[in-house]
């Protein structure tokens, strides 16, 4: 790229090309003039983002151009982040949302210019904090921004920005301290006792909550001390010594057997002596037992249902396990503070499926143990299917006879539904040529480096002669060496043949989610990553195919052929990649069955089915959503497995995708929390998977 700045008329021409301005009788003159002042590299960034935005919607491109020109100087290096924020908002809420997001980002920028230098934004620490919390919690926790730190037991809200500490390091640490304390509220049962009777006796509820929060913080600090002493050290640095008046409470609540009930007792004490405002400590978080307890009740109901159902099935299978059907009345759940039975029936819990185990774990936390009534069956008689029988949904009119019909697994009946899914296979629609070319030129550098890396994987079967070491003797070299020695010259020590045979007998099927939920960024990311992937696999020479899937109820399951195993990666294929678009729903099981059938026909030793999706299986009508869809998909993957096909899933899912281990087994999936990372990641995942 030359260093010369673009002149206004050149910029105008480029914008016209991107946004078809003449057609719309618009002029980019003013915008172009604003952009003329920028250095070339910045000009190109703006034009790049205009192009990206225009792919989504022409209007969005125009908005980005005019707004971007306005603020480009001010934004500087932050332009990319600014543009991305608006585009992401557009996916969720259209043009107005994009406009608002851009305005907000500018305001944010101006505010930050006035901010102390050491402040840290939540967005900066979110990634590390999420991982950190997952290590503590064992499962992903949701993080969100709010004006103050608090939790409802499921999401941790943290301030958008912290500037309390003098430097960035201190503020980052403060984020960690706040997050750990919020996590501890759920972990150590702050919401397991109903505080309302006590709170009701206070005139000022806010003040009561503040005192309650303070006492709980004292208790949790002691609980954390054994597990995370480093965090407690930070807390103590932040708070300093407790004031003398609070010393007795702090000491009493630090006893290992202290519970939330003790905090409430201190709260009552405080009320009786006539409390004033709480002293202020920087490490304290907000505290909202009402919201947390509401969610907790929902969670307990849901988890105990899951657990009971699983136990029922298990006991039906194995009548010798304890608590046979109907020998105890089903007690109403969760009298507060139920003592846990001496044995938690650990072995029994261990035999449960993963979702029930997760439910059991969550219940133990919510109830400080497992009340016996949960472990007793859900009433006399056999197992009651929870979901109602299917209501035949209005269905798009199928045209002609289906190309194939497939059975579907109904886990409630423990039986197949015969010829249940009607499958139509068709060629994927062609998209724009220019789109793929755009991706290829935009990522030219990345493609080159991926290709280079992949080429090094390519194995060829060949004998390398004249090696220092090898499994066979190279007779020619040996004879020569003999002759050399006889004639008095120095013989070469390279006398061996080394046989290199790295065989990649591999066929890969990519199954691409084309459901409606992929609309926007996810779809773009899917397409872009497919282009990069194709480039990479071409370098490797593996056999691969790409099919998209979507559908609308069982009678209309669509499979779109993007690239079959015999198709080449040519212009037509590229157009079909560009043409991948968000359509209807995700009935996954039937797609797995059809595509693993195609994959099975490949005469390679290894067969791999890679699913690219943005969430759990789902279909029109609520039947396929939830457990049914997961069970059916799991069954389909097991069938594939029996045919010698390995499944692997790459999912873009911000909600952590708890169901994936169940579907694919541990280590056979990747979760990507941000669609934008997909293109870079997918090729890397593929390389690892087949190295």
């Amino acid at each position, binding site marked *: 790229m030359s260093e010369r700045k673009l002149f206004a008329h050149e910029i105008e021409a480029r914008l016209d090309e991107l946004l078809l301005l003449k057609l719309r009788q618009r002029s980019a003159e003013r915008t172009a003039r604003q952009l003329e002042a920028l250095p070339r590299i910045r000009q190109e960034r703006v034009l790049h983002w205009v192009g990206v935005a225009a792919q989504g919607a022409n209007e969005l491109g125009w908005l980005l151009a005019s707004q971007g020109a306005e603020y480009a100087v001010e934004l500087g290096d932050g332009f990319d982040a600014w543009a991305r924020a608006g585009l992401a908002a557009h996916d969720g809420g259209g043009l107005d949302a994009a406009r608002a997001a851009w305005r907000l980002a500018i305001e944010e920028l101006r505010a930050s210019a006035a901010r102390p230098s050491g402040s840290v934004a939540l967005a900066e620490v979110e990634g590390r904090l999420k*991982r950190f919390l997952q*290590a503590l919690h064992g499962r992903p926790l949701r993080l969100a921004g709010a004006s103050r730190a608090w939790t409802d037991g499921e999401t941790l809200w943290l301030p958008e920005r912290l500037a309390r500490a003098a430097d960035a390091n201190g503020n980052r640490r403060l984020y960690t301290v706040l997050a750990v304390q919020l996590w501890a509220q759920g972990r150590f049962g702050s919401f397991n006792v109903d505080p309302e009777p006590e709170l009701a006796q206070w005139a000022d509820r806010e003040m009561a909550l503040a005192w309650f929060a303070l006492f709980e913080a004292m208790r949790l600090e002691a609980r954390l001390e054994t597990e995370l002493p480093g965090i407690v050290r930070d807390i103590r640095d932040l708070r300093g010594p407790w004031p003398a008046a609070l010393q007795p409470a702090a000491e009493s609540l630090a006893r290992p057997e202290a519970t939330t009930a003790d905090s409430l007792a201190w709260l009552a004490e405080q009320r009786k002596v006539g409390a004033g405002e709480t002293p202020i400590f920087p490490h304290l978080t907000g505290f909202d037992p009402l919201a947390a307890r509401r969610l907790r009740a929902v969670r307990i109901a849901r988890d105990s249902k899951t657990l009971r159902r699983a136990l029922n099935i298990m006991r039906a299978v194995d009548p010798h396990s304890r608590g046979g059907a109907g020998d105890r009345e089903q007690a109403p759940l969760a009298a507060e503070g139920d003592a846990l039975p001496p044995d938690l029936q650990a072995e029994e819990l261990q035999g449960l499926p993963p979702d029930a185990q997760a439910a059991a774990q969550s219940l133990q936390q919510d109830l400080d143990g497992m009340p016996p009534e949960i472990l007793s069956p859900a009433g006399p008689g056999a197992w009651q299917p929870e979901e109602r029988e299917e209501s035949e949904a209005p269905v798009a009119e199928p045209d002609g006879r289906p190309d194939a019909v497939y059975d579907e697994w109904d886990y409630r009946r423990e039986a197949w539904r015969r010829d249940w899914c009607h499958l139509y296979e068709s060629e994927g629609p062609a998209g724009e040529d220019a789109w793929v070319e755009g991706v290829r030129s935009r990522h030219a550098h990345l493609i080159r480096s991926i290709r280079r890396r992949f080429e090094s994987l390519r194995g060829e079967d060949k004998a390398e002669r004249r090696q220092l070491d090898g499994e066979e003797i190279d007779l020619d070299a040996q004879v020569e060496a003999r002759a050399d020695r006889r004639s008095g010259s120095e013989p070469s020590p390279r006398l061996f043949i080394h046989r290199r045979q790295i065989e990649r007998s*591999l066929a890969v099927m990519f199954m691409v989610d084309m459901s409606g939920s992929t609309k926007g960024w996810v779809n773009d990311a899917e397409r872009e990553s497919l282009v990069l992937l194709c480039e990479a696999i071409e370098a490797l020479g593996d056999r691969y195919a790409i099919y998209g899937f979507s559908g609308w109820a069982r009678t209309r399951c669509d499979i779109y052929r993007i690239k079959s195993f015999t198709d080449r990666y040519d212009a037509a294929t590229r157009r079909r990649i560009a043409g991948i678009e968000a359509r209807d729903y995700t009935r996954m099981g039937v797609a797995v069955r059809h595509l693993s059938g195609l994959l099975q026909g490949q005469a390679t030793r290894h067969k791999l089915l890679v699913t690219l999706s943005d969430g759990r299986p789902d279909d029109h009508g609520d039947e396929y959503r939830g457990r049914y869809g997961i069970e059916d998909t799991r069954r389909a993957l097991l069938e594939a497995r029996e045919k010698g096909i*390995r499944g692997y899933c790459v999912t873009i899912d911000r909600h952590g995708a708890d169901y994936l281990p169940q579907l694919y087994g541990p280590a056979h999936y990747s979760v990507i929390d941000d669609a934008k990372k997909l293109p870079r990641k997918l090729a890397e995942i593929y390389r690892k998977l087949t190295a």
Partner: protein
Amino acid sequence: MKPTQAARSTVSALATPLTQPAAEPYYHAVGDEVEVFAAAAQSQLPVMLKGPTGCGKTRFVEHMAWRLGRPLVTVACHDDLTTADLVGRYLIVGDETVWLDGPLTAAVRAGAICYLDEIVEARKDTTVVIHPLTDTRRALPVEKRGEYLTAPPDFMLVISWNPGYQSVLKEMKPSTRQRFVAVDFDYPQAEVEARIVAHEGGVDAATAGRLVKLGGLTRKLKGAGLDEGAGTRLLVHAAQLIARGMHPLAACTAAIARPLADEPDTRNALDDLIRAVF
């Protein structure tokens, strides 16, 4: 033709060493693995050890070799390991060609335990030579020499592999797997692991407990930034650095966090975890 002195000394210099430890290699049993292994050894059955990296598979084999009083030959398999590397090859010494036994052949001849670590890493054709050793034949054909070695009763084949691997190319075929008695390995229970770390790393119980706590936290990141959490081996490494006087934070960063992750978010999260635990 009898080999010359030069050839003999070359061969003896390159011959597979048969190790037999003088002292008992430290191993803390977590289940019935010792009994299973001993029974398999008596029944002349091959054994497969399954489990994540650094959970004590290799140490277990060393311990069992000592217990059974048999020499041990360990082969760390890699993707360039060929049949010849295992069985043996002809070497050229001066004007002569001399035969050198590979580790597997040497183990068969000596009635040793042959431990093929991470067997799936080796080339596919290597599994072919181990097949006849794993069934009732208990034999090793040495094709290049036209020899057919029958294994003595004390010979035992042990392989290990890590089922957590993601590569489809690195799966073991059922025809191979079903020849072995399998022992599952996992990270030991926290108290046991703390005892192991304290013993091997030379640190006090409190430090070992914290290291194990940290290890447990990293294992929950499997699949969420890490391919695998910290194994007991990494914890022992950190303990050894601490025992040398390094600050725990620095030791854990160097021995645990850095080997595990490159990606910034994960690295930072690991740093935070270390700080939180110590």
